[in-house]
């Protein structure tokens, strides 16, 4: 196992990882009453950036207007702190299992450039979709399923169903 660890290919048993993740999620609900999330922090970042460029524009906009208040900085939200934790936790895990490395991961059949173009377009779509569905795989689907929310199940099925179909469309990018 030690040699595996050093090559950076050691991963937790998926079921064990799942139980850990489930316990973290349960504790999150127990302590704070809400689930885990990720895209909300990205939204806060965008709101903060727009707010810094033009406060007036942010306040007038129907969408940013919901998240801009006078008494609080837009970055001062729970999810931003949580994502700081996510980055730190993932870094520690990468350090621990020897996976810290700057690289572009892609299938040997495609170039880095193609991978990056697809990554950025995927990111744009995910950004739009997560705002529309009011949550991403972690916030809406995972946390939603844990509290039996209808939205969580709908979002989960829509994401994985579509991704399953489209993964075959983009098969060449992956295997």
């Amino acid at each position, binding site marked *: 196992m030690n040699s595996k660890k050093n090559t950076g290919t050691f991963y937790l048993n998926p*079921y064990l990882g799942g139980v850990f993740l489930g316990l973290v999620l349960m504790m999150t609900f127990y302590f704070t*009453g809400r*689930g885990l999330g990720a895209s909300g922090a990205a*939204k806060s970042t965008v709101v903060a950036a727009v707010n810094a460029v033009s406060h007036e524009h942010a306040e007038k906009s129907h969408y940013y207007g919901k*998240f801009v208040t006078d008494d609080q900085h837009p970055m001062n939200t729970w999810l931003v702190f949580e994502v700081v934790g996510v980055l730190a936790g993932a870094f520690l895990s990468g350090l621990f299992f020897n996976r810290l490395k700057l690289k572009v991961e892609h299938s040997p059949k495609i170039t880095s450039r193609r991978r990056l173009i697809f990554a950025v377009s995927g990111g744009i779509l995910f950004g739009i979709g997560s705002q529309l569905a009011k*949550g991403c795989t972690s916030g809406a689907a995972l946390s939603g399923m844990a509290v039996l929310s209808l939205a969580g199940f709908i979002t989960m099925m829509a994401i994985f169903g579509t991704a399953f179909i489209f993964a075959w469309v983009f098969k060449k990018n992956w295997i």
Partner: protein
Amino acid sequence: MDRRYTILAILLIIAASGLLFLPDRSKPKEINPQELLAAIDDPARFISTDQVTERIIGADPALQLIDVRSPEEFRKFAMQGAINIPIDSLLIPQFKDVLTQAGKDKVFYSSSDLAADEAWQICRRTSVPRIYVMKGGLNEWFNTIMKCSEPNATAPSQDIDLYHFRLAARQYFTGGSQLNSGQREGNSGASDKKAEEVKVVKKETKTGGGC
């Protein structure tokens, strides 16, 4: 390897099937129906408009008026010192502090006393202490206090005293200008003494945006 997973899967299913035999949720504490019925029959929950008025004027610190009408109606007119908890929001956690504050008599009122009585019953069932209903509601309050009419000269002296009290109260609510204006019947404009907007310390229970 496979055997271990099979055992784990069986354990998981056993854990899940446990939920099948448990009730959905432990029920919130409720008083039993007999007690509730007895309490509903008991007229002691009603406070007359005169009593309420007296306590408002006396600036009774133990009085907490609760307006159960809609926020729009509340904004148009509300009694002095009242806070607005619309009847459909009574059980929202953020109002729990207001409803359960110790040492205060919570007096519900609405336009008549129907909605207020309903609010009283809801709160009684969840065992909120020291709650009352203003008899007759705002309409009665207007009729008795704001439009009080002079009794016959032959009326018993209690009635005359009551009339004087109501007259004084009316002047209190409409501002002291009409000290000697006698019994002008006209509704001298509902006093728009600013009722305190409800200021509950907002506990952040719900988060926006989700993910």
